[in-house]
């Protein structure tokens, strides 16, 4: 995972609720492409008109926000499908931080797995930031300080789970961390086979390989 410490740049307001992960990345794209190829297709249902041309009215097509690293979203951003490709697509466009009143739970987890910082703030706060962001002047999101600094110098604090903050700052690999506990996992499993023998299955017989 890429570590996250701070990011500076324009914050693009996308004030609509329930932007789902299907809209963030279409299923055909995630099925056909590798994770580092998805950036151009992020939010294409909103960015493009039916004929495939860019919709100039859409915020991410407007010059100050074309490569905005911060997205200001509505409630329940990233709801719907568990597809982690939604996070890969946003990151592929250079988005490193999404600020919203609430997020889809799985999307929220997926963000941390990849070094995209999701910040929950009350709706009024997000709206106030959006107003201040409208001209495209840069904001700074600092994970060390847990603050968002506006172009006018206002400093807005945010809260984040302590464990997730540390993992993001250090870019920790969760698998390596958990494997350090492998002895406890195996001990737990051993004991559980006595408690819940019904929960355990033997290994299936190997299957002949099909050509």
């Amino acid at each position, binding site marked *: 995972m890429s570590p996250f410490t701070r990011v500076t740049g324009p914050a693009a307001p996308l004030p*609509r*609720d*329930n932007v*789902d992960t*299907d*809209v963030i990345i*279409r*299923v055909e794209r*995630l*099925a*056909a492409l590798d*994770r580092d190829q998805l950036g151009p297709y992020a939010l294409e*249902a909103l960015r493009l008109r*039916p004929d495939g041309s860019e919709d100039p009215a859409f915020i991410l097509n407007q010059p100050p926000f074309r490569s905005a690293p911060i997205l200001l979203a*509505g*409630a*329940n951003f990233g*709801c*719907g*499908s*568990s*597809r*982690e*490709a939604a*996070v890969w697509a946003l990151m592929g466009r250079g988005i490193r931080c999404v600020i919203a009143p*609430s*997020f*889809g*739970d*799985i999307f929220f*987890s*997926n963000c941390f*797995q*990849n070094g995209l910082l999701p910040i929950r703030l009350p709706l009024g706060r997000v709206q106030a930031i959006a107003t201040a962001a409208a001209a495209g002047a840069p904001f700074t999101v600092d994970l060390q300080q847990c603050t968002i600094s506006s172009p006018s110098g206002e400093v807005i604090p945010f809260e984040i*789970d*302590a*464990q997730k903050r540390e993992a993001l700052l250090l870019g920790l690999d*969760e*698998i390596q961390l*958990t*494997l350090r*506990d*492998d002895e*406890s*996992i195996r001990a*737990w*499993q051993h004991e*559980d086979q006595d408690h*819940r*023998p*019904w*929960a355990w*299955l*033997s*290994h*299936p017989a*190997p*299957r002949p*390989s*099909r050509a």
Partner: protein
Amino acid sequence: MSAQTLFDKLWTAHVVREFGDDWALLHVDRHLMHDLGGGPVFVELAKRGLKVHNPELTFATPDHAVASTPGRVSTTFPLGGKLHEALRSGAQTAGVQFFDIGEPGHGIVHVMAPEQGIALPGLSVVCTDSHTCTNGGIGALAFGIGTSESVHVLATQTVRLKKPAQMRIRCEGRLAPGVTAKDLALHLISRLGAAAGTGYAIEFAGTAVEALDVEERLTLCNLAVELGARFGIVAPDERTLAWVRGRPKAPQGETFEAAASYWRTLHTDADAVFAREEVFDARDVAPMVTWGTSPQDAVPVTGRVPAAAAAAAPDAQAGLEYMGLHAGTPIAGTPVDWVFIGSCANSRLSDLRAAALVARGRHVAPGVTAWVVPGSESVKRAAEAEGLRQVFTDAGFQWREPGCSMCVAANGEQVPPGKRCVSTSNRNFVGRQGPGARTHLASPATAAAAAIAGRIADPRTLP
């Protein structure tokens, strides 16, 4: 010991280690994998030089990107064939059981897992699919995960998770005849909103839920994620136990009885407290249909596209525009082009029976393309054995091969742009069934009625 909720009991039973702040390392009892991304998960594991921790607890089946064309093979949809092959070879190398198309046990993961006894009450079940919560219908701790978490599960047989807050939704009374679990779910989402469950695990309870058969509970829990929740659960009861007994991978004999006595303890204690509780009267629920582009945009089939929506929210206005509908008009009577009966929401045998009851002796309206896609090979075979296939094909429906098909439209099967589809699936998102496709969510009976009438219609009053 203090009073516990069902969710507390399920959670506690799986904690390997606690990290503080409600974070825990949870044991994963069953890891389900599908073709949309399953192959790369195996590749990533190999790239890191890691092995599958417990291959006997992992199961794979291709469902998202397989064609549903009668007579289909792996490569009927070529892109799907590649994904299918990647999953198959990854599973074989890792020693993970793979249910291939055409074999008993193949199907949509959330249909085949409980059906095969892979998912059981009291087990933790994960899958890189948000509708994994479906399995909560039998009392499993089941939740969707992302790709990175799936690699983590393969490598460690655990997942790191923060314990969510808990909500109970009690539905009291009885659903009226002709009103189903799907209608109840859409009713709840329309009343509470698509984000109401965000950050919560939801337990569905109350006399109306207790009265649901097990397959209906799976449908209800399937839609928990459309309320924003990662978990939806119903306490297992004697009906659940009877349903589970004898399933291929369920415990047998004395082991089953031992499990059953544990499963009987899996219920919320009388004085347990929830962070949020909602109570609904089941008698208020009618057959529902959506009008917009979020599952919360649902009204009774006898109702109107809300007039208020247009004025109130720009989102609703955009939804109406996308759907080509006008505020204030009756939703019934809206002409339809497509009908899709399938998906992990509604493709089990009881769903097909409900749709067949409407289709029997009637005919699909001219100009409507109507598909029935069974959720699994077993559902397909059972439906054929009891004559449902014949009912559908006599009525002009197409009878197809099992898979996710036109719910997520990852298999090349799409509703054409601008066309209107009544679908038994769980998402009416923009472009979900194909770019520009217009989706109305409904129950199998309501979808079948739409196919017959050629317009959105009330299944209870179909001529």
